């Protein structure tokens, strides 16, 4: 079995590389890779499993679509511009304060929803625009958005990787707040200073002159109400869950989008909103297609045993080698399995460390900081792609990765320290 599964893995990697190169579409490359994997492993053309795979990340796809709709509706009424204008007027002269404010704005949505993509979709465009004024080159803007987005996903109170590992290991999701908060804040501070170094902002007057004038009738109430509703629904779901039904994030964003239509000072026609909606679908499509395709790939990796092959090779390593290779396996697993990485690699590692008497809350926290690092890696690179698309970065993906590298390594080093020197971090779990 090991030999056949190894052949299958090699065939899949080869097909993925070849297809990505020839077809220039990571989405279809993943599906072709899955089909070839099933064929090589002797499963023929498993229609049910291929179709079933497309549904794996449907909820995430709906989240991407609805969050994008909300923000595009919000921009359509001129609110985003007005918000940027307001921020520039108030904080622009204080560079570092402004940068920390932008980082904070990025951290909040992801921290409370567990999804960095929500941060990017909701405030990523806005943040990127201000960063542009502040003299950030394009790849650094994308990198800033990406790093703060993955930090937001890792930040408490909702860290989905830690939650999935806790669920898999039957441990309560408690004791994670401090141990996640401190490394996230440390990395944020580092990233802000790192990205902000040496940039020269355009003069405030020039920026304000170039910003589109505020839409007629736009005021702070219209600007803030959609976000107030968004935060209200999110906080209610988290802190008053028994007095409201489960609304879910996609419907939350749709309700906010509807509120934007109602608040539109210019009362645009339905036709105009329809155009915005269809444009949004086109913009967000590569991500929807990626999620659909990665689900197919994940399903076939499980079927053929390729998933098991990767997992068993990692978890059977001696503990020292787990330390050495964790920063390779965990991010790569995230790149190919998305949140599945926490269940497939994370849970066995927790049991592994548990068997040698290590505090598993620290281990889960450390791993939950490592997995998001893979969100910019192939084959899926979901958050990486989302960042560059939202920022409008047109350069090479490698250039973007280079820009990300130093804060990436900082977070990686912190996470690795937590994994190795577990005892030191135990007080933070109390």
């Amino acid at each position, binding site marked *: *079995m*090991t030999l056949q*599964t190894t052949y299958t893995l090699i065939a899949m990697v080869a097909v993925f590389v070849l297809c990505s190169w020839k077809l220039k579409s990571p989405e279809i490359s993943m599906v072709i890779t899955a089909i070839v994997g099933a064929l090589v*492993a002797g499963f023929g053309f498993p*229609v*049910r*499993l*291929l*179709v*079933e*795979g497309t549904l794996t990340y449907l*909820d995430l796809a709906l989240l991407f679509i609805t969050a994008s709709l909300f923000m595009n509706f919000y921009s359509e009424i001129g609110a985003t511009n007005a918000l940027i204008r307001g921020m520039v007027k108030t904080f622009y002269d204080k560079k570092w304060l402004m940068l920390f404010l932008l980082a904070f704005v990025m951290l909040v949505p992801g921290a*409370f*929803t*567990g*999804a960095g993509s929500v941060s990017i979709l909701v405030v990523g465009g806005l943040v990127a625009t201000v960063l542009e004024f502040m003299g950030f080159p394009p790849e650094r803007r994308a990198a800033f958005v990406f790093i703060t987005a993955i930090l937001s996903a890792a930040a408490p*109170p*909702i860290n*989905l990787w830690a*939650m*999935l590992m*806790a*669920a898999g*290991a*039957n*441990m*309560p*999701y*408690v004791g994670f707040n401090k141990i996640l908060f401190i490394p996230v804040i440390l990395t944020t501070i580092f990233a802000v200073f790192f990205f902000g170094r040496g940039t020269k902002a355009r003069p405030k007057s020039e920026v304000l002159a170039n910003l589109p004038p505020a839409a007629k009738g736009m005021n702070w109430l219209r600007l803030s109400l959609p976000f107030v509703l968004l935060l209200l629904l*999110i906080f209610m*779901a*988290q802190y008053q*869950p*028994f007095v409201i039904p*489960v*609304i*879910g*994030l996609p419907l939350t964003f749709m309700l906010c989008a509807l509120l934007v239509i109602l608040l539109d000072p210019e009362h645009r026609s339905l036709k105009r909103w329809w155009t915005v909606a269809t444009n949004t679908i086109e913009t967000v499509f590569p991500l929807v297609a990626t999620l659909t395709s990665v*689900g197919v790939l*994940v*399903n*076939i990796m*499980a*079927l053929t*045993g390729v*998933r*098991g*092959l990767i*997992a*068993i090779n990692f*978890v*059977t390593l001696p503990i020292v080698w787990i330390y050495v290779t964790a920063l390779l396996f965990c991010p790569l697993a995230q790149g190919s399995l998305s949140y*599945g990485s926490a269940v*497939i690699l994370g*849970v*066995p590692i927790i*049991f*592994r460390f*548990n*068997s040698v008497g290590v505090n598993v809350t620290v281990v889960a926290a450390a791993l939950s900081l490592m997995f998001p690092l893979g969100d910019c890696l192939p084959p899926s690179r979901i958050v990486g792609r989302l960042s560059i698309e939202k920022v409008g970065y047109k350069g090479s993906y490698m250039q973007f990765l280079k820009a990300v590298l130093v804060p990436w390594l900082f977070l990686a080093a912190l996470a690795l320290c937590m994994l190795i020197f577990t005892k030191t971090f135990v007080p933070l779990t109390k």
Partner: protein
Amino acid sequence: MSASNIRKLAFLVLFLVLAGFASAEFKGLRYFKEKVVVSEAFTEKRMLSDWLPNIKGTWGDTPVYFYDSGKPGATVLIYGGAHPYEPAGTIAVYVIMENLQLSNGRFILIPRADMSASTEGILGNAYPQYLHIPTSWGQQQYRIGDRETALIDQWPDPFTYVHYPSKQNLAYQDLRNFNRTFPGRADGTLTERMSFAFMELIRNEKVDLVIDFHEASLMYPVVDTYVTHQRAEDIAMMAAMYCQLEMPMKCEVSPKGLRGLTHREIGDYSDALCVLIETAEPFIDRVVGRVTEQLMIDGKDEFLERASEKGLLYTSYDINDAPTIDHRVARLLTASLELIKMYDQFYPDKAVEFWYPRFTDVKTNGLGSYLHDPSAADPSRVFEN
């Protein structure tokens, strides 16, 4: 129509046709009925919605089978299928339903605790849809389902699940996990209502002992183990000792800080004693190789053997003597049997007198020999789930 549009239409039709083939398989599983031939001791079939009417007509409703001797004795509730991707639990309940002999006391048996979850497979895990048990009269077919209630029955998920009433945060999909939603809410989500209906059944029928059948991955510490509420600790500890005559068995007390689980909440929110039983299921370990029905049946996996050699498993594993489906069902049978017998010893005034096959019986005669042919049975004794 332009050539480009014809091409696009062709692709769309092609994929819709493929989706159609897949849909036929999805629907096949959703509406497939498992057959069971109940033993002479059976008295009445009711529905879970009898204890909470608002789940009537939903996929959360499920049959509840009563076996009442009419003589004094404890009421024992045994159920499987809280997590349908652990099918040994359901099959073990079927074996009890088909073979139970009862002189004293009452059994309430529920083979499919989360009916909805049994009608779809897990997304992203490429599970086969069915498993087949060979018998002398042919094959008996059962569903392999999901861990959680199907999304087409309970959607959307929250971004985080806040457990009622403790307010503990759990992973979002656990709001569809039948073994994380106890004690449930009468006006909550479908899974919370199913759990609440179970609680109502337990309270109203004055159940004395609840036994919850599960299977666990071998890399999970709580495997081949009783997990017991602290009020049933003595019974479970003693039962584990008696199990050793046939098979190894461990015992753990339910942690008080981990909410939503049956062994915690049923014990806290009713007078019943509650014990969950886990048996080793190689199929659900994440490190296994090819995910096939064969693996579900014979439990043989090279990767798992490697994990065993490295000391990563929490139970013994030998690929040449792997935990087959027969073995796993057999374990659940003896584990539950010893629990009830021990209950009898602790509460002799409520003793239950009964018989159903145990580990050695199933290992000797094969699982199939305890499943009866529905086509040859008295139709009034054949039920579908």
